[in-house]
């Protein structure tokens, strides 16, 4: 029942968005709204905000008219989104493992926490555009287990770079969340560090970990798309956004198909984390 309600509200929300979009087009002036020299609302003509149906119709049209291998824009966007989803999931897994290992190490050794945590925070202040060319530059220089570095490897690494942070911080918080009395109980029962970790700290970290994974999934998707744009990696939806944006002068609705694809991609990633949420439900609030 609750799930049905979620589905209904999702459809309603989408419909409202479409209505708001078309309403803005109908009501607001074509040139947008300005206060002084600053535009506060965007232009609403067909070039800046194409009709929803124009965008949807574009999905069915061939991507490159006259090309030998025909595929529709919809197929291109779908395959691009799937490709990016794979890279983002890979980035999430790599980032998740890295973040979890860091959190465990920091929870185990106070010295490590004091030494590492500032660096973990600092890592997120380095702009992505500074890292992307650097990572892309590893191509042809590093091989993993004999496999050469592929362009998509760079995208996955950049995506994991964004994803590990919330998991490391969230899990560290979770691992140190059990009450003093509980920890002392385990100690009085002569439970070792591993036992305390498995029976107390890990279950206690779940309520902290789930929102962290949710954040990490979103970050991984954003990271993958931005990395694709930055390094020009072929095959993903990020590359499509910029390719279609190039032809936006003559065909503005096309870019929105790629943007819609990226949005759906984010929703799918969030839904995947929702499944994890269901699987770990029994641990929610188990150790208050």
């Amino acid at each position, binding site marked *: 029942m609750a799930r049905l309600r979620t589905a209904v509200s999702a459809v309603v929300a989408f419909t409202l968005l479409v209505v708001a979009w078309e309403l803005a087009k109908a009501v607001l002036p074509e040139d947008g709204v300005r206060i002084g020299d600053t535009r506060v609302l965007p232009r609403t003509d067909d070039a800046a905000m194409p009709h929803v149906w124009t965008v949807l119709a574009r999905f069915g049209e061939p991507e490159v008219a006259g090309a*030998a291998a025909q595929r529709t824009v919809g197929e291109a966007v779908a395959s691009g989104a799937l490709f990016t989803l794979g890279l983002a999931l890979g980035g999430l897994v790599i980032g998740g493992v890295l973040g979890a290992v860091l959190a465990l190490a920091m929870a185990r050794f106070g010295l490590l926490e004091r030494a590492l945590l500032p660096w973990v925070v600092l890592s997120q202040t380095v702009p992505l555009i500074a890292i992307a060319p650097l990572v892309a530059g590893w191509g042809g220089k590093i091989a*993993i287990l004999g496999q050469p570095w592929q362009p998509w490897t760079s995208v996955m690494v950049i995506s994991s770079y964004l994803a590990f942070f919330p998991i490391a911080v969230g899990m560290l918080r979770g691992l140190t969340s059990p009450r003093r009395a509980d920890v002392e109980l385990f100690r009085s029962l002569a439970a070792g560090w591993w036992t305390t970790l498995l029976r107390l700290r890990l279950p206690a970290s779940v309520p902290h970990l789930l929102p962290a994974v949710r954040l990490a999934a979103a970050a991984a998707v954003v990271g993958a798309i931005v990395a694709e744009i930055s390094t020009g990696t072929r095959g993903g939806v990020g590359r499509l956004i910029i390719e*279609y944006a190039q032809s936006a002068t003559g065909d503005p609705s096309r870019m929105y198909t790629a943007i819609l694809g990226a949005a759906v991609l984010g929703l799918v990633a969030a839904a995947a984390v929702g499944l994890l949420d269901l699987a770990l439900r029994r641990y929610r609030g188990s150790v208050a």
Partner: protein
Amino acid sequence: MSRFRTALAVAASAVALAACSTVAEPSAGPPADGGLTPVSLQLQWFTQGQFAGYLAAVDQGFYEARGLDVEILEGGVDIVPQTVLAQGQADFAIAWVPKALASREQGAGITNVAQVFQRSGTYQVSFADSGIAAPADLAGRRVGNWGFGNEFELFAGMTAAGLNPAADVTLVQQQFDMEALLSGEIDAAQAMSYNEYAQVLEATNPDTGALYQPSDFSVINWEDQGTAMLQDAIWANTERLADPAYQDTTTRFVAASLEGWAYCRDNVESCRDIVVAAGSTLGASHQLWQVNEVNKLIWPAPAGAGTIDEAAWARTVQVARTAVNADGQTVITADPDADAYTNTYVEQALELLRADGVDVEGTSFAPIEVTLNPGGS
């Protein structure tokens, strides 16, 4: 027990590190077994008509015939070809001369070995009824420019017309598309003859319901204004040019690349198909336009395609040293040293091509007429 675990952890990280091995530096000499020499070429952007000659040389087997196995690396928003080349991740790179000179001044060891585009393709486009026919008319207007080193011809042109770019015009940072010009956000927009200018001609004019026509626009071509700078050139790694094997590879690479461009001059439609097949999504009529316009920048080449013209080079350096952009900076602060360009390899390459009967001057070149379709399709 705990010590055992520590040892295990150390061993695990050692294995992980060992798994990441470094790959030996590419040596661009002919391989011992007489096979093809692997060569990588870094482009400035995604595959499109601007790079048709290199794609055609791969497709038509010109590189293979010269003993090269060429891998073409596409560019991206943050990929700087001259840096990729200087760091040894590619054997050759395509880059604009002013940007490459700026990178050289910051220490990138690269040398121009073939000036493929003999002319600049940068326009400043405005509506015909805006009354902007010359750089001086830009006074008081909203002038779009791309920044990031793509704007110096415009700034030099305005300065030469007696304008102070920082005070006399309103500078606007331009996006990838030309929407800002069509919607009237800016009065004059930067455009490449082979790309953005085609994009406005592929857009529908809301007043007529048909596509915009060239007569709707007024174009300032920096070639006519005397502030044009040299653009796409093949750059090689300066340090590696001391190696005779790399010298030989360079000659063969330049020769096969120019053969590709000669092929695109004589087979515009075929090159359009090659570019579309290489995965460009910009549309077939757009790519045909692009290949045709790029041909105009290369041909005719009286001294032989790819030859670096000393006068054009000197003008480029002059503009690069004197034109001041919106941030008050010039491209370079001192004249580039003697390693910045050399005609040695292109001359050898042209000899090879002439011996094979390839027309490398293109004196009889005539561009075709391209009809653009809506959206470039």
